[in-house]
């Protein structure tokens, strides 16, 4: 199976052939995947070098000229370093584009904290109008990248990761999916957290929802799931900062007394290298830790 980043290159290369409005902007990261596309479309595959403010500014400028920019680098250099460019060169200019990140929260743990971006979705939450896709499988990334490219002048963020689930789900770029039904509470798994959530809740009487599009938040799906439970107890398991979507769950459930537990990556720097699995365990996001935290919450 290819990785999400490899799928990003192959899908976008195909889309460049099909859609003359599409343009890819890179900053030395991911260039190899676009060699053939750059040969065929030299004006629409642009590598600006290691210049991330320019990377995002060029994306905004392409949109001002009527193009649909797809802008890619690691999440830390796409959203965090040039955040004001994201805010102004897309949002304030009232133009759209697709930001596609790699690296996620700790895809390369040996690279350390400089290459970790667990705060990317929370940062985008401070801006208006961004659609956020968090695929959990390369096939889902395929679907969501195609939808993002075709989404008119929408502002779309696609968060790619090497952390994946074993099997793809039929995601549609909007709604949460119901993966398991129960009555004792609702666990919402975001993107690559699904497999660990399913393992953690094995044998528990809970509904498991699966979200790969977290903004806009599917209020209706959460309300419906809560309506089928004896108590409005919700656990959200996200692959980025813990609690990022808790506000959205609270808003969706404002009509009913409810409890929400937000699980995800902590703010504290672990200052550890190692492997992805070790970081999941270190953040309490492995299946065993999740089961303890979920059952502990539901039992209270």
């Amino acid at each position, binding site marked *: 199976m290819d990785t999400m980043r490899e799928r990003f290159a192959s899908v976008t290369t195909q889309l460049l052939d099909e859609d003359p409005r599409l*343009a890819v902007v890179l900053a030395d990261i991911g260039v190899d995947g676009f060699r053939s596309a750059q040969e065929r479309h030299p004006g629409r595959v642009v590598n*600006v*070098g290691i210049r991330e403010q*320019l990377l995002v*500014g060029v994306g905004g*400028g*392409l949109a001002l000229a*009527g193009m649909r920019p797809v802008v890619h680098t690691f999440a830390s250099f796409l959203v965090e370093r040039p955040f004001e460019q994201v805010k102004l060169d897309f949002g304030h200019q009232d133009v759209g584009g697709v930001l596609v990140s790699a690296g996620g929260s700790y895809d390369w743990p040996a690279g350390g904290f400089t290459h970790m971006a667990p705060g990317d979705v929370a940062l985008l939450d401070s801006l208006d109008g961004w659609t956020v896709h968090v695929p959990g499988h390369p096939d889902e990334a395929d679907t969501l990248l195609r939808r993002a490219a075709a989404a008119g002048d929408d502002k779309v963020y696609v968060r790619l990761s090497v952390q994946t689930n074993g099997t793809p789900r039929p995601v549609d770029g909007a709604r949460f999916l119901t993966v398991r039904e129960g009555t004792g509470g609702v666990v919402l798994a975001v993107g690559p957290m699904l497999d660990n959530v399913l393992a953690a809740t094995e044998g528990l009487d809970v509904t498991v929802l699966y979200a790969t599009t977290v903004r806009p938040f599917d209020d209706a799906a959460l309300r419906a799931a809560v309506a089928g439970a004896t108590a409005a107890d919700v656990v959200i398991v996200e692959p980025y900062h813990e609690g990022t979507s808790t506000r959205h769950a609270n808003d969706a459930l404002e009509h009913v007394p409810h409890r929400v537990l937000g699980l995800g990556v902590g703010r504290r720097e672990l200052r550890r290298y190692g492997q992805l699995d070790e970081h999941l365990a270190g953040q309490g996001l492995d299946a065993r830790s999740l089961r303890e935290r979920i059952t502990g919450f539901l039992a209270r």
Partner: protein
Amino acid sequence: MTHTTLDGTAAHDTGFGELPHLMSLMTGDEKHGPAATSTLDALWVLYDRVLRVSPATAQDPARDRFLLSKGHGPMAYYAVLAAKGFFPTALLPGFGSYDSPLGHHPDRVLVPGAEIGSGSLGHGLPLAVGTALGLRARGLTDPAVWVLIGDAELDEGSNHEAIAYAGAAGLSRLHTLVVDNTSASHGWRGGIASRFEAAGWSAVTVDGRDHEALYAAFTAPHPDRPHAVVARVEAKEYSGEPKPKAAAA
């Protein structure tokens, strides 16, 4: 001569001599210091003689683009846009007020004729690079892209990312106008033009009050490379935000 503004009303073509009056509708003063007018001559020559854009072609994909990156002190810009009929001069007295489209920094969504919203320094040149790339990708190889920055704005690192890339990429339809009123805290040793030339741009420095010199600099041929015009004006004498007439009371 008359022409039609974006809202359909006829307007008399206004000359350079009337710009101070149009600015006074915003500032309440008939006389303006060098800081308020630092961009006025260059803007006028651009809109009067160089840019191929008018209220009638403001949405034409093949129009020339002018991006005001230095959004501070936009009174001269608004005066020129109004003089050229992009919006009625009746909007000018509302400058900075809640119901006015004319803020102390321009917003492209609100101001007819404004290509970008600006105010935060260092965004216009990267946006201009992207615009030049986008027009070229669409096969629109004729339109020129102009961006105006200030000499102090040049401090922002994002400009240097854009200057280096645009020179290397040979973006020949890209033009940067640097209005230099010696306001950068640490100055530019070796001169501003040298920064552009070192990056592979064509660059020329002129008197920013001399309309013929500006016109010659704006229209100088620069095949295969982007072009920078450094327009030198009097040193800035006042530091701070513009004062709207209405808010003074």
